[in-house]
């Protein structure tokens, strides 16, 4: 009874979506016809005016600039031109919002920079002082060490976990979609404040792990510099595993491309399931590991926890003023961000090269 009702509900929802789609399709046609009748001629006139003037004239296969530079328009040249037209908007954005800010913040990281209402940004060159300050800082250094430790432990953990899950889901089991849905769910809801609150309430440690004997033994017997990061990681274990959402799907997509005939041939030759996993499954998803490493490192590094490095960088930038002695302003913030970024890239390349292993020829 209930099943029937749910089925009808789902059916009606599907119908509604179908209606919307048809509506859009219909609408699209009407718009395109209207466009073709009324707007296109107008554009054609503009185009004609643009391509038949003194500066630029296009005649058949020739483009004439300033009436004397003649360029033959080959198909290849035209394609290159169109390519640049299509990515033009991206090139502009890259220059304004990525390359220039990168260069500028690199420049600022060698400066002492403050924001001044009258003069804008005031900078004085201080060489490597910002970086030296970071290396001396008693707040930042432990944070960086923590960050590295966290990455070193959790990246392999996530990779192994996601391989296990994807191999499990790839078995011929029922309700594949549901398992996928479950393991992808964290990607949707993992927003900073929610994660912070869950961490604060200790909902992210493995259930019943905290009272286990192993946990107590670890915290009591190890020296604090190992035990502290370890307990930290164990306490936020679930949050770390939540980063596996996309890697699981990546591995799954890779596994589904493996030819089943390969497994069959191996099993006829007498390979056990264990052998098949190590000799077929793992090598076939090996190239995907480095992609996943990049994704995991980036997404983990971009998580901003209160009092973390990224949060501190923001604080230095916002609070930094020429009259405050504690904060070192824009330059210091930029240096921090750069050190963080470089560390991130180093970790990424090390992990990717470890997991990718030797290249077979």
């Amino acid at each position, binding site marked *: 009874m209930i099943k029937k009702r749910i089925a009808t509900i789902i059916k009606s929802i599907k119908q509604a979506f179908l209606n919307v789609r048809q509506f859009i399709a219909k609408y699209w046609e009407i718009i395109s016809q209207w466009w073709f009748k009324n707007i296109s001629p107008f554009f054609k006139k503009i185009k004609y005016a643009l391509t038949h003037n003194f500066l630029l004239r296009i005649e058949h296969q020739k483009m004439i600039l300033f009436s004397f530079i003649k360029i033959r328009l080959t198909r290849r040249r035209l*394609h290159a031109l169109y390519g640049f037209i299509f990515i033009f908007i991206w090139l502009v*954005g890259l220059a304004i919002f990525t390359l220039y*800010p990168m260069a500028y913040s690199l420049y600022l990281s060698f400066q002492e920079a403050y924001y001044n209402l009258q003069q804008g940004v005031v900078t004085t060159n201080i060489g490597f002082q910002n970086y030296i300050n970071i290396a001396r800082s008693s707040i930042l250094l432990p944070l960086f060490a923590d960050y590295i430790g966290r990455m070193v432990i959790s990246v392999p953990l996530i990779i192994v976990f996601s391989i296990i899950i994807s191999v499990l889901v790839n078995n011929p089991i029922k309700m594949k979609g549901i398992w996928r849905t479950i393991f992808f769910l964290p990607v949707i809801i993992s927003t*900073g404040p929610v994660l912070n609150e*869950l961490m604060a309430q200790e909902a992210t440690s493995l259930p019943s792990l905290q009272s286990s004997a192993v946990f107590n033994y670890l915290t009591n017997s190890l020296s604090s510099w190992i035990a502290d990061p370890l307990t930290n990681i164990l306490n936020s274990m679930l949050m770390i595993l939540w980063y596996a959402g996309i890697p699981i799907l990546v591995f799954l997509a890779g596994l589904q491309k493996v030819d089943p005939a390969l497994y069959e041939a191996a099993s006829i030759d007498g390979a056990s399931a264990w052998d098949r996993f190590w000799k077929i499954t793992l090598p076939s998803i090996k190239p995907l590991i480095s992609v996943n490493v*990049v994704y995991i490192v980036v997404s983990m590094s971009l998580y901003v926890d209160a009092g973390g490095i990224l949060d501190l960088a923001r604080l230095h930038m916002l609070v930094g003023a020429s009259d405050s002695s504690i904060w070192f302003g824009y330059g210091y913030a930029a240096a921090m961000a750069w050190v963080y970024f470089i560390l991130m890239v180093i970790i990424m390349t090390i992990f990717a090269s470890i997991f990718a292993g030797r290249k077979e020829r």
Partner: protein
Amino acid sequence: MRKKFDVYEFKTRMKRFLFGMKFMDGFIYKLVIYLLLVSFSYIYLYPILYMLVNSFKTVDDLINPGIRWVPTAIEWENYSRAFQVLEFPQSIFDTTWYVLKVSAAATISSCIIGYGFARFKFPGKKILFGLMLATFILPSQVTMVANMIIYKRLDIMSSEWTMLLPAMTGQGLNAAIFILIFYQFYKTIPTILMESAEVDGASQFRVFRTIALPLALPSFLIVFLFSFVWYWNETFVTALYVGNAVTLPLKLQVFRASYELLFPPGTAGSELNEAIMMAGNMVTILPLLVLYFVAQRYFTESIDRTGITGE
């Protein structure tokens, strides 16, 4: 006459049932797999379940260590307070409208840029494409100092344009992934389609509009959904550029402060407890959950679309 119970046959049957023809299709194997999956997904979903259950608990239930999964009574008061603190009906519309705008901008720009990369050959394309992918690993914290100054110059600081402009130019949040999705999709369209249109006299823009765009509808949906979710969840950059309490997650970030404004400490029954916090969390992620369960297929299909599994 009843058939005699044959021990041998029973044995072989049980064996067949438990271990199957080659173990992989036996009952035990399946059982182990299901058990593992169920336990892993319990671990995985534990925080969400915790959040859901705790959001309904009364104060007594919270303190009582004997009550873990089933509250004695469902407390709707938590939710009504969370709604009040998060200014509910208004804030959800505001957030949705803002995120819709930004993710529409990101989708449209990446569909154009992806076409440029996928369809045409031009000098320096490989370098530019590599640069495009490399922008994915660049944290926004590296560029934030300079970006702040740029936005101040443009006089768009603390307005939505600070998010819209990068999104429009394909530099927004995770824009590299979106462009990659479109790129891979356009690569799968046979070039013969477009070339024949070209021969028939269609300009490149017309080919793009009438052939590539309508075919790319599923990619549109995927990119749009993802950018919606990611922009919804983004808090660092949004807080920095747009303002401190524009989206629901940002309102959640200052939940404690705004709670104390609404229910000043000292009055009876006004203490902020974990249950109310959890209710706030649930409210914040609820729109995304609904979206996820409606469009679940598109989310989980997305990975195949990026084509990173190699062609």
